[in-house]
């Protein structure tokens, strides 16, 4: 059953020459207890999608479409409505835990303050739960950790603290916005394993935003590939990564260092993604695509079913080979 159902979400941010469209009709779904991946280059609209779902868009942003969470429409909620959803319904883990934790408030304070609002806990109960949560995310000596400040932890530990904070008010959906990007590679795996364990233990649904397709394969069941503010391909992660149906997905996989072969395996995608407001009239990937045909230039291709539970937005549908 769909916990989050986003349909045709479009967001335009205020620009110097009128509204600048960033997201063009994004649709996606997260089921209960599911780990869904959202992948794409930086600036493709992944993070903006997350911000829309928490009502944290910058002032003046224009939003259309629909985003239903547990049956209620999110878009158009008033301040109070958003307050109820944030933290208790949908929670968020940010990219850089050092920036996302308040440097002058103790970990305990940051863990308990929204528990007390959402779960109406008294101070002692909230403190007890804070210690439990820190233990759950494997922070050593949680009784002392609640009294410590964020700067007293290492980067990986800070992200564990941030995850504990996100989970404190018992949300049903966790949006993790590149939670391992700012961390050392050795620490990343631990954070990923933690998220997966939490999903398994608590039935939490997770929307995992990343630019690293490799992270998707090990973690998620389904994935969405974003390009220039659109979903260009979606499907079960395994199929997405081994048999992509969109040239962009294939190109992303090719641009990823992999295997042990030395030369010739790393193929960068020529050019860069179009800046917002400067996308070509047709398929946004056309200028960089090796398979482009004249028909690609007329209109952005719609996302169409290409197999069981799979869709791709490509009119050419070439035969794609991927080195795995």
């Amino acid at each position, binding site marked *: 059953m769909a916990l989050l159902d986003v349909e045709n979400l479009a967001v335009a941010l205020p620009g110097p020459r009128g509204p600048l469209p960033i997201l063009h009709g994004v649709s996606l779904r997260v089921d209960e207890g599911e780990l869904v991946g959202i992948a794409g280059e930086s600036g493709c609209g992944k993070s903006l999608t997350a911000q829309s779902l*928490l009502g*944290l868009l910058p002032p003046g942003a224009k939003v259309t479409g629909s985003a239903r969470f547990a049956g209620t429409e999110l878009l158009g909620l008033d*301040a109070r409505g*958003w*307050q*109820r*959803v*944030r*933290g*208790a319904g949908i*929670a*968020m883990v*940010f990219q*850089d835990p*050092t*920036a*996302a*934790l*308040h*440097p*002058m*408030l103790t970990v305990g304070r940051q863990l308990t*303050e*929204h528990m007390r*609002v*959402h779960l109406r806990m008294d101070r002692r109960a909230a403190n007890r739960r804070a210690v439990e949560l820190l233990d759950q995310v494997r*922070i*050593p*000596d949680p009784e*002392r*950790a609640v009294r*410590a*400040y964020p*700067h*007293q*932890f*290492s*980067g*990986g*530990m800070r992200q564990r603290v*941030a995850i504990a*904070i*996100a989970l404190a*008010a018992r949300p049903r959906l966790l949006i993790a916005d590149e939670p391992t990007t700012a961390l*050392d590679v*050795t*620490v990343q795996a*631990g954070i990923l394993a933690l998220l997966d364990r939490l999903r398994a233990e608590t039935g939490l649904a997770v929307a995992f935003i990343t630019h690293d397709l490799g992270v998707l394969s090990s973690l998620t069941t389904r994935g969405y590939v974003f390009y220039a503010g659109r979903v260009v391909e979606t499907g079960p992660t395994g199929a997405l990564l081994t048999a992509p149906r969109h040239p962009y997905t294939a190109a992303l996989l090719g641009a990823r260092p992999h295997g042990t072969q030395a030369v010739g395996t790393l193929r960068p995608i020529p050019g860069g993604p179009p800046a917002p407001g400067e996308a070509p009239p047709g398929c946004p990937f056309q200028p960089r695509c090796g398979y482009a045909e004249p028909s690609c230039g007329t209109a952005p291709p719609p996302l169409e079913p290409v197999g069981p539970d799979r869709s791709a937005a490509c009119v050419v549908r070439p035969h794609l080979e991927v080195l795995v």
Partner: protein
Amino acid sequence: MTTVRNDAEPGAVTTTASRPRPRRHHPLLAFLVKRVAITAGLLLGVTIVTFGLVSVVPGDPVTANLSDQALNDPEAVAAFRAKWGLDQPLYVQYLHYLGNLVQGDLGLSQQTGRAVLDDLLRYVPATMELAIPTMVLALLVGTGIGMLAAVRNGRITDQIVRVGALLGLSTPPFWLSLVVLYVFFYQLGLTPSGGRLSTQFSPPPTVTGMYTVDAALAGQWDVAWDAAQHLTLPVLVLTSLTVAILVRFVRSSMLEVLQQDYIRAAYAKGLPTRTVLRRHLLRAGLVPVITVSGLAFASLLSGTVLVENIFGWPGLGQYAYRSATALDLPAILGVSLFVALVYTLVNLTVDLLYGLIDPRIRLQ
């Protein structure tokens, strides 16, 4: 903003509390001892510079202090010079002053004939009685308005605040003093025109030297009320100036904090806006404001000549002004030392407050 990173092995909580503490002097004590030594050096420097400046200033304390008739009498002039040690070489005068200073003797004021220390004890409390309520009010109002402007960044409230702050900064204090006197004293008759007390009252027994406090301590509520009324206008003028300074700093500091991820994270947790503003924004945004507030407070404590003059307020500013025009060296030195001491103490307080508010810069 600098962040102290403690990137030890992943998995380690490196709290300072977790390490066994080596048996040393308390770090705060060592810090304070160092600051006291620096302050002593600074005060010595102040005496040297002031002495040097006064000696190179064209003008003679003799002509500044004696009447024309006395100036025509060589004996009177010689007697004045001998009495104040002006016939000695400058370095002898200086060493003599220093010798008295370490015994706590600031010398006699040529102008008032009283000990400079007694003069300071008389004038400083009057200035403090203006400075303290001004600073408290300015911090409350300035922080509130500055925060409001930052939260409403770019909107009409923000515009009004910014124009208001600019106006406040560019208004000459003496002009504002005259305007409020005209309105509140002359037109409305709500306040007294100046001075510290109405003539029918005599000053309360001295405890702090601040009339409102002393009167309240003595239970003389009518005197306290009268003293408070005399405070109103000068405090109003000084507050409006200080608020104008603070608002700009508070606004820009809060704007910077509002951009931080941890503010977005606080909203993302579902906290009510007022909690985010009061707990998350205020605390982080006030850190840079502490420095400016400290400087503003020190400058208020050093006396405000123009405002004190217009309201007939016998404070440090007036004393400094009269001493300077009379080339009253002991008094000038006394005021300079006091001002230097005020700035050092305020800076020390600012540093301690930093540590109190921001755990990252707490003393190791």
